[in-house]
């Protein structure tokens, strides 16, 4: 028997798809389901389950009737997001099939399946009526605790109704393959490594003797840990009774913990150098904004922060709100006017996380939306505070990027947004001639946005930069002028 399939089409994922896959698989990892949690990761938004992408890809691979899969290899090459159109390519014959999902020209999921004629001796499938998920919340494990030999085991059964519907929605996915993708997603996202997992690769062999059932058990044992990249290799197996349904390996990255806000080095700092001055820091909950708040506070300035969420330890003057929300900004301005009667420094630091994008047809809307959102986070505070800043001969500080001077190929949206806000503050000094503006073009900083195994390499300290900016603000800038701090 031989079969061949080929074709091209596109798919996209919705929030409902994520909820449905979560119901079917039991994977409730917050990176996929919790907006607020995902916002604080380098991805800035919920990530589509890699195994859901693989399942959608499998829907375009048709195993001939009477054939059974003997192996499955899935590589999750790049994160996938809601609402993006992914192109599917699938082809194969003679027992080997290959499928891939692309974001423009970039592959995001790669899949290989081997199968053979089962001669009617495959084990009958037992479809249960209830799911069996031992974990309702993802395990939280530190990298130090994940060592070779660490073994976990438990019971597992997909939600049969949800899985059947999902498999049908994906175009008729083989039940065994849908089951093992669901299980592996649960295993990696909920158990080992758990909450901080980034699924990288799955390689499974099927033994053909045991059926999928409602009451399976699994075992996973850490084979190796590459501490340089926080990459974990795990030996895994799924069993019905004493018979193995599938066995193989999973590879996953452990996302590094969010960087802590650093203590500002106070050596050589004059603690009253900004006494009596008033500052507003937009985007103050983490990264450079949090460090700016501390660096200005250390010098005696009265600092008001604005952030989308409040952290433990934030000063009482932190307003929770969106930097693009004029109402929230008005509340801060009114409070500053009421309590201090002046504003000396406006620090515009808020910016959405930027993910690599190419100037390609399916990215045009994402680039446009990013620029709109990123510009709004600086433009709206500027419009709200410029008048007050002008009355106080104040300074608007714009956190731009060194990429404006030295563009890199994968971030057209980020660089365009930073270029636009630089242009806006230059014009601001013409309209409000008593203010001055400071454009800061930092290199890559170690923040939640860059906190990936490779992104961390060579990233500069936000605390050091904040101290430099605050030190520059100790000395007057010329009204009506724009200075660049590179």
């Amino acid at each position, binding site marked *: 028997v031989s079969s061949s399939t080929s074709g091209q089409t596109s798919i996209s994922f919705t929030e409902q798809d994520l909820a449905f896959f979560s119901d079917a698989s039991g994977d409730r990892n917050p990176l996929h389901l919790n907006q607020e949690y995902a916002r604080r990761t380098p991805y800035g938004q919920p990530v589509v389950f890699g195994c859901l992408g693989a399942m959608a890809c499998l829907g375009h691979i048709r195993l001939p009737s009477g054939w059974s899969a003997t192996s499955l290899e899935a590589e999750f*090459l*790049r994160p996938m997001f809601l609402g993006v159109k992914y192109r599917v390519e699938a082809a194969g014959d003679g027992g080997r099939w290959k499928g891939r999902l692309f974001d423009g*020209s*970039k*592959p995001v999921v*790669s899949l290989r399946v081997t199968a053979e004629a089962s001669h009617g001796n495959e084990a009958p499938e037992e479809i249960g009526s209830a799911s069996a998920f031992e974990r309702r919340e993802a395990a939280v494990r530190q990298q130090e605790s994940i060592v070779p030999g660490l073994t976990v085991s438990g019971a597992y059964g997909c939600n049969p109704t949800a899985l059947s519907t999902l498999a049908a929605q994906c175009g008729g996915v083989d039940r065994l393959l849908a089951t093992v993708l669901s299980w592996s997603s649960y295993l990696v996202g909920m158990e080992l490594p758990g909450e901080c997992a980034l699924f*990288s690769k799955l390689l499974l062999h099927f033994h053909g003797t045991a059926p999928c059932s409602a009451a399976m058990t699994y075992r996973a044992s850490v084979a190796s840990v*590459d501490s*340089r*990249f926080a*990459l974990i290799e795990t030996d895994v197996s799924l069993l019905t009774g004493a018979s193995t349904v599938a066995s193989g390996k999973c590879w996953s990255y452990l996302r590094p913990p969010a960087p802590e806000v650093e203590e500002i080095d106070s050596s050589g700092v004059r603690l009253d150098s900004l006494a009596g001055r008033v500052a507003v820091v937009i985007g103050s909950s983490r990264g450079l904004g949090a460090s700016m708040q501390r660096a200005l506070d250390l010098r005696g300035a009265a600092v008001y922060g604005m952030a989308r969420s409040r952290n433990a330890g934030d000063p009482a003057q932190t307003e929770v709100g969106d930097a693009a929300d004029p109402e929230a900004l008005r509340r801060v301005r009114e409070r500053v006017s009421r309590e201090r009667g002046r504003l000396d420094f406006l620090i515009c630091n808020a910016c959405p996380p930027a993910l*690599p994008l*190419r100037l390609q047809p399916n990215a045009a809307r994402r680039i446009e939306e990013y620029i709109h959102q990123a510009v709004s986070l600086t433009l709206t505070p500027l419009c709200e505070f410029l008048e007050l800043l002008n009355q106080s001969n104040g300074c608007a500080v714009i956190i731009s990027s060194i990429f404006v001077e030295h563009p*890199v*190929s*994968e971030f057209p949206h980020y660089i365009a947004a930073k270029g636009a806000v630089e242009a806006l503050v230059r014009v601001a000094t013409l309209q409000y001639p008593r203010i001055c503006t400071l454009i800061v073009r930092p290199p890559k900083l170690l923040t939640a946005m860059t906190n*990936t*195994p*490779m*992104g961390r*390499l*060579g990233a500069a300290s936000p605390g050091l930069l904040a101290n430099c900016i605050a030190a520059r603000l100790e000395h007057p800038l010329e009204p009506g002028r724009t200075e660049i701090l590179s």
Partner: protein
Amino acid sequence: VTEPIELILTKVFWDVFDDETIALRPDLSAKDMPDWDSLTHIRLLLTIEREFRIKFTITEVGDLKNVGELISLIQSKTSSSSPQS
């Protein structure tokens, strides 16, 4: 006979990037290849380590600028290990 490093490395690039049109040159870097992002970089390094039976340190990995430097690093690692025949 041991294959030249450049030849083995080219095959690694073809495999990792799934593109057999890639021709390596010393100044080739991530800037020239859209698919060469951070996760692909890790896959590339791990495949090179497996292929040449060497290990990079995280500092060496962070310092790499282009294919020329990568080849030099592999050369230094392979020549310091036991000679092959």
